[in-house]
């Protein structure tokens, strides 16, 4: 997914079509989840080898039906840290009717800045803070139909990922305009990059990020054969394409 996302985000903005922009955004949305979730699982596994038990960091966040639920499932250790050491000391939910919203925004501004000193991260933090505030206020007034809760949440998360991935706010804006069909035109053929193997891994990525695989009873030898195959293919990918650094290694 990373190679496709990198390719689509490297296309000059005047050449970005809606198809390329959506392909890039969706691939990056999957990439960042598996990248960071895998990174966390490695830390948990290494810790367990040394006798430490670390908490889980992700709980299939793309299954969420709201942004509030998303933040209960995504990067849980950071969310808990911000809740315990910033949100609650600031007064949490029990300090009037307006103050909780400003606390929430402050937490997400700092959460954005935690990822790096860049305007894009700041905007990403503000975006999620604003979405949470809108969700809290809106809950009393509007009930979003169940059928659109999940797609709307995934759409909002994907838009947020564009802010996170783009090097500048201007490029993020152009990318989002392209996603909305207001991009440029190009003869660039996406089929050269979105090949059968990439489509297969994209579908597998969606399945593993949405389906509760732990609840499906599969015989241990089948699980082990699958894990062994994935391990071997990953070794081949590293040998052929080199090591792609983890997105979160710099945070």
């Amino acid at each position, binding site marked *: 997914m990373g190679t496709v996302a990198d390719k689509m985000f490297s*296309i*000059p903005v*005047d*050449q970005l079509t809606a198809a390329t922009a959506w392909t890039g955004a969706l691939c990056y949305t999957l990439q960042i989840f598996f990248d960071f979730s895998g990174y966390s699982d490695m830390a948990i596994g290494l810790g367990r080898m040394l006798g430490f038990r670390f908490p889980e960091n992700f709980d299939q966040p793309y299954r969420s039906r709201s942004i509030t639920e998303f933040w209960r499932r995504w990067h849980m250790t950071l969310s808990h840290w911000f809740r315990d050491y910033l949100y609650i000391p600031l007064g949490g939910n029990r300090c009037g009717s307006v103050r909780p919203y400003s606390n929430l925004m402050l937490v997400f501004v700092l959460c954005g800045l935690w990822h790096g000193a860049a305007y894009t991260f700041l905007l990403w933090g503000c975006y999620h803070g604003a979405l949470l505030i809108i969700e809290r206020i809106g809950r009393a007034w509007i009930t979003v139909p169940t059928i659109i809760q999940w797609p709307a949440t995934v759409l909002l998360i994907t838009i947020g990922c564009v802010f996170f991935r783009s090097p500048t706010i201007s490029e993020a804006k152009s990318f989002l305009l392209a996603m909305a069909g207001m991009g440029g035109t*190009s*003869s*660039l*053929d996406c089929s*050269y*990059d979105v*090949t*059968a*193997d990439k489509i*297969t891994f994209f579908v597998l990525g969606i399945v593993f990020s949405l389906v509760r695989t732990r609840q499906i009873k599969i015989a*241990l*030898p089948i699980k*082990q054969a699958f*894990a*062994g195959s994935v*391990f*071997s*293919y990953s*070794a*081949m*990918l*590293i*040998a*052929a*394409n*080199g*090591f792609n650094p983890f997105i979160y290694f710099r945070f």
Partner: protein
Amino acid sequence: MRLWFITAIFGLMLLPIIQMTIHFAPEYTVNENRALAPIPNSKIALDKFPKAADLWFGDHFGFRSLLISAKAQIDWSIFGTSDRVIVGRSGQLFYKSLENDSIPSYESLLSKKSDIIIHNIDTLTTTLKRQELKPSWLFLR
């Protein structure tokens, strides 16, 4: 069963380093159109040593060529694709990066500098005609 699996995965992880050390299996070779990273020597600066060692290891770990070949074979046999080349209709191979990236590059260049390019082609055409030489390129107007 679990212990056997853990041992097997651990064994697989150790295989490349064992192969590098004792060369227990015959070497498989792939032709690469680049020079592989050399082994870092004592002349290299201390701060550049980790990077040089990493590059050398990345290019020389055991079974690397076999893994590259297996990946290309899986891509072609299962998915009918390749990371690096496009297979033409008559079996010709084209570098994917050159073919695909050149199109937006030309379009971008033409959209920004089309006047200059057309002016230069016109000037060259006029000059060649003046010297009674017949230009035969595609852009001739």
